[in-house]
């Protein structure tokens, strides 16, 4: 491999690492650390609508910056955490909540995976039960029991077995 290529790749990897190190949470804007901590705790539970896989606390999208500003302001007005979350859902819907509330429309989201698991387990149990009741000759014998070379099993004609 040419040395120049290796060096280029190395440089790119290094640059990526450096970028990762720089990508930290957005800088706080308020002088009050307690308020800032509370704001971060609340907004870390809220989805940024512009970059949907980031929280409002993490995102540097201008909407997220504005929503952090609004959150600070609401907290300064003495609003509770609940009231801040209600403020967000009134405007953007339950979609902003990383933990959506349990409702008729979200039941599938909450119970779907467990239901799928239950169905899968039930099917598996049923199949296994039926198999234990089956007579031994319903199964093909293990290849080891036949005392044949493993290679021969690949060719049905050589084993004399009906395909």
């Amino acid at each position: 491999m040419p040395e120049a290529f290796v060096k280029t790749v190395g440089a790119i990897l290094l640059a990526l690492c450096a970028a990762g190190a720089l990508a930290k949470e957005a800088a706080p804007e308020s002088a009050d650390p307690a308020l800032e901590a509370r704001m971060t705790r609340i907004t870390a539970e809220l989805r940024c609508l512009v970059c949907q896989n980031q929280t409002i606390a993490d995102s540097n999208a201008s909407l997220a910056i504005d929503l952090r500003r609004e959150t600070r302001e609401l907290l300064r007005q003495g609003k509770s955490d609940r009231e801040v979350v209600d403020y967000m859902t009134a405007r953007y819907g339950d979609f902003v909540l990383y933990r959506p509330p349990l409702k008729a429309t979200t039941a599938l989201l909450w119970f779907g995976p467990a239901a799928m698991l239950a169905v899968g387990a039930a099917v598996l149990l049923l199949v296994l039960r039926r198999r234990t009741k089956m007579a031994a000759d319903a199964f093909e014998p293990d290849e080891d029991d036949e005392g044949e070379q493993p290679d021969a099993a690949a060719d049905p004609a050589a084993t004399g077995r009906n395909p």
Partner: protein
Amino acid sequence: MKRLWFLIPLAAFFVLAAVLAVALKLDPREVPSPLIDKPAPKFALQRLDDAGKTIRLDDLRGKVWMLNVWASWCVACREEHPLLVEFAKKRVVPLLGLNYKDKREDASAWLARFGNPYDASLFDDEGRVGIDFGVYGVPETFVIDQNGVIRMKHIGPLTPEVIATKIEPLLKKLDA
């Protein structure tokens, strides 16, 4: 009956394929707004072209009107702009602009260059009214009825189809 059991995995496959096909067509960027059929948030904003004049929600009561959220920095707004200019010519309903997080000079220059379809633009430089309207992806378009209730919201640039199949029938229904 028992003979057909081997079809179950096939049926399961088709159900899964149908679910995935529908989900593939859904746009995760189009988040249903909780504001539909709710009263529009109150606002009082300066006009973009005249800082001395304020427009309030109550000024528009009794009319069906449309609010289009735009900004000079918004590329998709430029894309939908000719449609709005065209739509405004029909003078069906008052069309107001919400100039979102923009600079007055930039916004005015933008309108001078691409045409001004708006009866007036509201100047929301801090984006507060935008937040009250649940704006997250400019451009967005709202239809608000005589009682100040939001009846429709479209996220992203308008298309001729959206205007013809959604907005115009709704305006007709609202007897605008």
